[in-house]
């Protein structure tokens, strides 16, 4: 057993659980809103050679601080190469070179379909969200999709308002019926649990509860009726190394970005 740290937040657990899912050989497309913290913790711990790609064109980046946007200079400075945006989407994403597309979500349903476009009707939205960015094609061109988000009844809903990116649609073989050959969402990591799609129905099912989290808590923060696997596990708590790596990364990030200051009054 590795050494455990007694105190950690649900968000830290989420980021660290996500980082553990990434392998050294992965080529990871870190899309808008995705936790690049998880990808970089993986790179700084068990997956030093993981390839991180940001849609701004930076391939094989190793940022010392977390970028605030997908186009920060730090990503370019530490990349193996930086290519144009059309090349990124044509050769690298559509070319089938991405093993893991890592997406966040404003609204998520139990089949891994994601909405980051609008709350309400598309033409007359209640809230206009930023939209999909790279997500529609990340969701279908990456070999697998990992999703990470903090649980809430507003975020995890029975029916999303808009299909920004396609997960398993109505479940089952819906992807295949649309001619999509990639696996789609294979992992959901929240601040409370780890979820995987049922092999047949493709409905996200809780396979592991984070330490100290109850089934009731998971259900209370989710808008659909949650299924739990029979062989429910407990997520190993963050190790001291994992927590230190994440916290150091966030501290470095905060220090670096504080340095920019705001425009001085004229």
């Amino acid at each position: 057993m590795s050494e455990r740290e007694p105190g950690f937040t649900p968000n830290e657990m989420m980021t660290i659980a996500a980082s553990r899912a990434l392998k050294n050989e992965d080529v990871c497309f870190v899309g808008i809103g995705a936790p690049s913290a998880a990808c970089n913790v993986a790179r700084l711990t068990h997956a030093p050679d993981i390839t991180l790609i940001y849609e701004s064109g930076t391939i094989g980046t190793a940022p010392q601080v977390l970028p605030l946007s997908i186009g920060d200079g730090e990503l370019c400075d530490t990349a193996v190469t930086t290519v144009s945006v059309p090349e990124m989407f044509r050769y690298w994403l559509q070319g089938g070179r991405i093993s893991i597309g890592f997406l966040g979500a404003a609204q998520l349903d139990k089949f891994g379909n994601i909405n980051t476009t609008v709350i309400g009707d598309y033409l007359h939205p209640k809230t206009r969200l930023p939209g999909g960015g790279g997500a529609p094609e990340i969701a279908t061109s990456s070999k697998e999709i990992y999703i990470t988000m903090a649980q809430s009844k507003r975020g995890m809903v029975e029916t999303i308002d808009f299909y920004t990116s396609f997960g398993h649609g109505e479940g089952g073989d819906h992807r295949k019926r649309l001619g999509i050959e990639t696996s789609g969402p294979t992992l959901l990591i929240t601040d409370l649990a780890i979820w995987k799609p049922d092999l047949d129905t493709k409905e996200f099912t809780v396979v592991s509860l984070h330490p100290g989290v109850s089934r009731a808590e998971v259900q209370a923060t989710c808008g659909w009726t949650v299924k739990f696997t029979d062989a429910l596990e407990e997520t190993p708590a963050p190790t001291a190394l994992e927590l230190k790596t994440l916290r150091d990364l966030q501290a470095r990030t905060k220090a670096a970005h504080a340095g920019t200051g705001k425009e001085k009054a004229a």
Partner: protein
Amino acid sequence: MVKFLPLSEAVAGNLNDGDTVAFEGFTHLIPTAAAHEAIRQGFGELTLIRMTPDLVYDQMIGMGMARKIVFSYLGNPGVGLLRRARDAIENGFPRPIEVEEHSHAGMANAYEAGAAGLPCAMFRGYRGAGLAAVNPNIKTVSCPFTGEVLAAVPAIRPDVTFIHAQKADRKGNVLVEGIIGIQKEAVLAAKRAVVTVEEVVDSFDELHPNLTVLPSWTISAISVVPGGSHPSYTHGYYIRDNAAYLEWDEISADREKFQAWMQANVIEKTAADFAARVEHLRTAA
């Protein structure tokens, strides 16, 4: 042939009411100074094209200059929503605005097709995505060899594209480096192109041959505007003003605060004011 002009002349000579215009930049190298000059000159009925509209389009929309926006990510990068754009879309304030929404892949391929002189782009996209149902400019073509159905979008061909770049040489060739985004395609796809640069150097003779250089004859006008991409950044010159992006979230949340800020920071200012804004952000090069 390219002309070196003050920014006010470059904008006045290349932008018209009703134009389809792209101010491009992918987080890096956003042509803020050019956009502010366009705001000062008060153009209207513009169709604004950009993958990541960002603060400058939030400002133009807030000032009522746009009749339509074509985009793929309508956010304040690293912060959240664009509140003036939201107000226009959700409430029709200060005027209703038409929306044409794509994915990044759709926009990138459409610019590429524009640069390549094609009428449309073809790619594997929008499968299962809601945009295909709400955007009539997303159609399909079938591969004549495999029968695979692929997405098609019309090429983007702006009347004029504005970009910011690191430097020009005296002949008017322009170097873009770092995160190069979609800028080359946006320039080559456009009828006219205006570039603001940090500086002019004697020659590019010592540059590596494979860098992104736009030959002088692909550009209409160049204006030297140090700091011209603030609060975005220019790789090798100054870093991003992250605080300004956070601050924008507050300013843009309120209609009056927005107007006051625009008056003080755009209307009453000139392109020459950008240099001072990046002084504290300059990197040790």
